[in-house]
């Protein structure tokens, strides 16, 4: 029992060390020539435009669901006029980055791991190395750059759509005026709220690409191994997104003295 626990801990620490070193290599490759701009463009397009429909749909309905909950609760206390403020805080600080991060993690982490893992199992990564190409610079760094650019943008768009969903609920369920709702949204959009809302997607972009590319490069055992790595990649990336959501909130609150 104790032996198993020690073995698992050792494996976990070894994996963590490997992930850390791999992530450092990815970041270095993203800033050091050669930068594969064509791949950066393709990955940015794939991550951004490809994820947009699913982010828009999720955000639209999640925003309305959240606003509906708030509207019912606020109506009981006769304070439905606060809906805009509550929506802004909940969406921009928490639900927006989390939902977008999780939706993008499930879509891209699986795609990245599966693609890189398949390339590894068919020796295409060895072939890249044999041609004198650094596979991390060619495959991982463009994905990192692409997601660091697109995830904050997707989050801003998702936030906006959620707030529009909230506006619909404000008008038709809470029966408050739209001008009041939007003026509250503007008032609640203070520096700290925007800071948290911007910082989170940036960190999530790093987490998603670090984990998914690392899992792809380290996958083994043929198609079955690639499948297992893909599942693990989505699970680890999603859990880390939620853990870092809490950590970042605590850190920003501490920094701002909230």
């Amino acid at each position: 029992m104790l032996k198993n626990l020690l073995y698992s801990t050792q494996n976990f620490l070894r994996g963590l060390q490997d992930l850390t070193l791999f992530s450092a290599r990815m970041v270095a490759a993203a800033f050091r020539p050669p930068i594969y701009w064509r791949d950066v463009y393709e990955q940015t397009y794939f991550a951004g435009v490809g994820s947009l429909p699913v982010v828009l749909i999720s955000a639209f309905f999640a925003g309305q669901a959240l606003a509906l909950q708030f509207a019912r609760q606020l109506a009981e206390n006769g304070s439905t006029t606060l809906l805009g403020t509550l929506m802004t805080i909940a969406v921009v600080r928490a639900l927006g980055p989390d939902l977008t991060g999780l939706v993008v993690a499930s879509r891209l982490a699986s795609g990245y791991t599966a693609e890189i893992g398949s390339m590894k199992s068919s020796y295409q990564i060895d072939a890249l190395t044999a041609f004198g190409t650094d596979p991390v610079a060619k495959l991982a760094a463009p994905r990192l750059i692409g997601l660091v650019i697109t995830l904050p943008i997707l989050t801003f768009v998702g936030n906006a759509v959620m707030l529009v969903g909230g506006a619909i609920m404000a008008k038709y369920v809470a029966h408050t005026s739209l001008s009041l709702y939007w003026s509250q949204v503007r008032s609640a959009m203070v520096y700290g709220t925007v800071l948290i809302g911007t910082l989170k997607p940036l960190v999530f972009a790093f987490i998603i690409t670090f984990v998914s590319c690392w899992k792809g490069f380290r996958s083994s055992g043929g198609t079955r191994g690639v499948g297992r790595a893909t599942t693990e990649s989505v699970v680890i990336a999603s859990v880390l997104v939620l853990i870092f959501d809490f950590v970042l909130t605590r850190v920003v609150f501490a920094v701002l003295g909230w």
Partner: protein
Amino acid sequence: MGGSAPGASGAVRLAPEEAPGGNAIVFDGVTYAIGGRTILEDVSFGVAAGCIKVIMGPSGIGKSTILRLILGLIRPQRGRVLVLGKDVARISGEERSDLRQRIGMVFQNGALFDSLTVGENVGYSLLDHGHLRLDEVERRARYYLELVGLDADRLLDALPDELSVGMQRRVAIARALASNQPAIMLYDEPTTGLDPASVETITDIIVRLRQEMKVTGIVVTHEIPHALKVGNRFLFLYDRRVAFEGSSEDLAESTIPELAEFLLPFKISVANAFHSFSAEGNGQ
């Protein structure tokens, strides 16, 4: 061999320091283990510049490991691997990258980049490392595809999975050749799983590369008839070590039991090869 390679200069010539003792590749007491299992133990041999050495042996004996050691994809625990006079494990990453660009590798399953077209695959190295215009890359890709007997007009824009396995293997050879006309070619089971006509075509390509361009090579295979046609020298791996090294005559006369057992299904081929080599004066 149908005209000269665009941007290339005919036969490969190595500087004296690139072939110490006349060998373009030297294994000096190499031991390699992974996961507590020793794959190669105290393996030593050389590959003379301009010659092709065939590495034979049962499956899983470490034949492909030798190629991976040459490329520096893995490092030996003991010993040295000298490629073009450089110790692969001890040079800087940049030097290793430069060295790899002088080595063409044909992987066991072709390992073509499946998201790129055939033309992009063949021109990959030129696009990645060269500073050539696209039309020049395309011209060279066409040349090398024609060189391996493929119809460039028809295949240039095709994706690898639209091709037969034999054609994929030929594209892989064209891709390896297009990388700055390599001084060394490594072939990992180049004919495994192919129909007899494709085996014949690929064998012919490897022989022509050796004879006309003097490309040093290593062919890893367990297909003896093919091995006997392409190789000058032969090496048999058994139980982690080099059990045999010599010419086709030595191969025919060898009394090593493991080698005799390995060659048994092919003994007619070995005898024929010995006679044909004897008649040609071992035709090097």
